[in-house]
């Protein structure tokens, strides 16, 4: 399967750019819980923000990718790039043939935000969940037909999340209701992460090498089924925009702390399903488990794996059965904050904080080495235990520190 793709390249501090956009791995459980949180308060109008953030990230990627095509590419070149990028990154399959510069209808035979969300809740949603798709296809259609990115307003007419056999999105050339303008992506930490933790039998370089041989391209359906979840190679700027806009809006309601707490909870879901899936996978058993003699080694094995996710460089600086200190260089949340809004007065790395504590909970409290079934009942039982690790963001690149530091203790 040969796809027309944007230029892609690894960058320093664990980043990976696709069409100039940093990509990060996240699964359908994280995407579901994040969106569920974002949409809690209808007055925040986060549906528009999600669509605009998707359009922003995809549009910036398309713009940079076009620069690599001779003469900006033909219409068919750009169409192939748009359709193939959607599938390659795990978002599903999309048919843009019914759209012109004046608008039209997009169909989505398969959608991560449609079919894969239904896998999480095992029932129909009351409202369409394919908001990301709507933003992506509005930017894609504009790119293909050479009109400004904000040309189209998208309306979701059918969505697999609600039980429709496929998705359908109408594009009208009336202008998008909300737009974000994109921004440059910089590495912000000048610090040297140094070598991985020395006191372990885990070989991070070998793990990164082994993970580098795995194929994380979307399959024929444009999906990435791995580790018991559906992965996406998603735009970091999308996550950052929707999360920070959510917090900005919540700041006016007196519920900012609560909103941050829910973003951490969303991160716990990510750690539970994605990290849990990784640590119970055949790939873990083949490559990493044989290197692990102690539970501490499991932590180092998971940290090594995280360093392949595009989340920045994690370094364990202290580890015991009751406490871990992880320093993160260029965590994507801090980078996004600095790029989009400038220096913050509060730490912003809620996903990273939850991921560190969630890793410790899986290894030291939930006995992940015994391969429990990672269902919601197990999550609830594990979450209700006493003696769980709680994270604290003790340093933050978004606040001007050299690295972000997460301390998780119990």
């Amino acid at each position, binding site marked *: 399967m040969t796809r027309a793709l944007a230029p892609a390249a690894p960058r320093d501090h664990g980043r990976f750019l696709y069409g100039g956009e940093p990509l990060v791995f996240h699964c359908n459980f994280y995407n579901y819980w994040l969106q*569920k*949180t974002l949409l*809690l*308060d209808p*007055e925040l109008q986060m549906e528009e923000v999600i669509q605009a953030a998707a359009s922003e990230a995809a549009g910036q990627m398309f713009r940079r990718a076009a620069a690599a095509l001779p003469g900006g590419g033909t219409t068919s070149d750009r169409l192939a790039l748009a359709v193939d990028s959607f599938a390659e990154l795990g978002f599903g399959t999309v048919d843009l043939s019914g759209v012109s510069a004046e608008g039209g209808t997009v169909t989505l035979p398969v959608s991560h935000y449609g079919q894969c*969300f*239904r896998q*999480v*809740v095992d*029932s*129909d*949603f*009351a409202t369409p969940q394919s908001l990301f798709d709507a933003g992506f296809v509005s930017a894609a259609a504009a790119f293909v037909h050479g009109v400004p990115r904000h040309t189209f307003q998208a309306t979701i007419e059918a969505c697999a*999340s609600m039980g429709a056999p496929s998705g359908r999105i109408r594009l009208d050339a009336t202008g998008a209701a909300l737009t974000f303008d994109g921004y440059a992506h910089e590495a912000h930490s000048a610090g040297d992460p140094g070598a991985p933790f020395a006191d372990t039998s885990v070989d991070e370089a070998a793990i990164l090498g082994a993970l580098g041989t795995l194929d994380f391209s979307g399959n024929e359906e444009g999906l990435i089924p791995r580790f018991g979840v559906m992965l996406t190679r998603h735009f970091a700027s999308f996550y950052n925009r929707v999360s920070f806009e959510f917090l900005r809006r*919540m700041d006016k*309601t*007196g*519920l900012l702390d*609560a*909103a941050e*707490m*829910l973003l951490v*909870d969303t991160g716990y879901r990510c750690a539970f399903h994605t990290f849990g899936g990784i640590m119970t996978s055949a790939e873990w058993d083949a490559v990493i488990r044989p290197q692990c003699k102690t539970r501490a080694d499991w932590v180092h094995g998971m940290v090594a794996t995280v360093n392949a996710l595009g989340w920045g460089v994690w370094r364990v600086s202290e580890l015991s059965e009751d406490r871990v200190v992880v320093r993160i260089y260029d965590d994507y949340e801090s980078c996004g904050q600095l790029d989009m809004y400038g220096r913050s007065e509060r730490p912003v790395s809620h996903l990273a904080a939850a991921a560190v504590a969630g890793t410790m909970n899986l290894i030291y409290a939930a006995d992940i080495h015994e391969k429990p079934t990672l269902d919601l009942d197990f999550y*609830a039982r594990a*979450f*209700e235990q006493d003696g769980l690790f709680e994270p604290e963001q003790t340093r933050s690149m978004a606040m001007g520190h050299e690295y972000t530091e997460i301390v998780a203790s119990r």
Partner: protein
Amino acid sequence: MTLQELFPGKMGKVELTRIAIRLRMPQLLKSPTDAPLDEALVATLQTALDTVRKG
């Protein structure tokens, strides 16, 4: 009915936070969890809980 009966345990605390955001009621997170709630508020919370628990 009290908040801790409606929202038991740590999972309940997270659900209560979701409800507080859903209803824009920050005072819910500062209220004593063992104080009796009036019936109208219980009904409001129950309805919001049902909505939030759905996909």
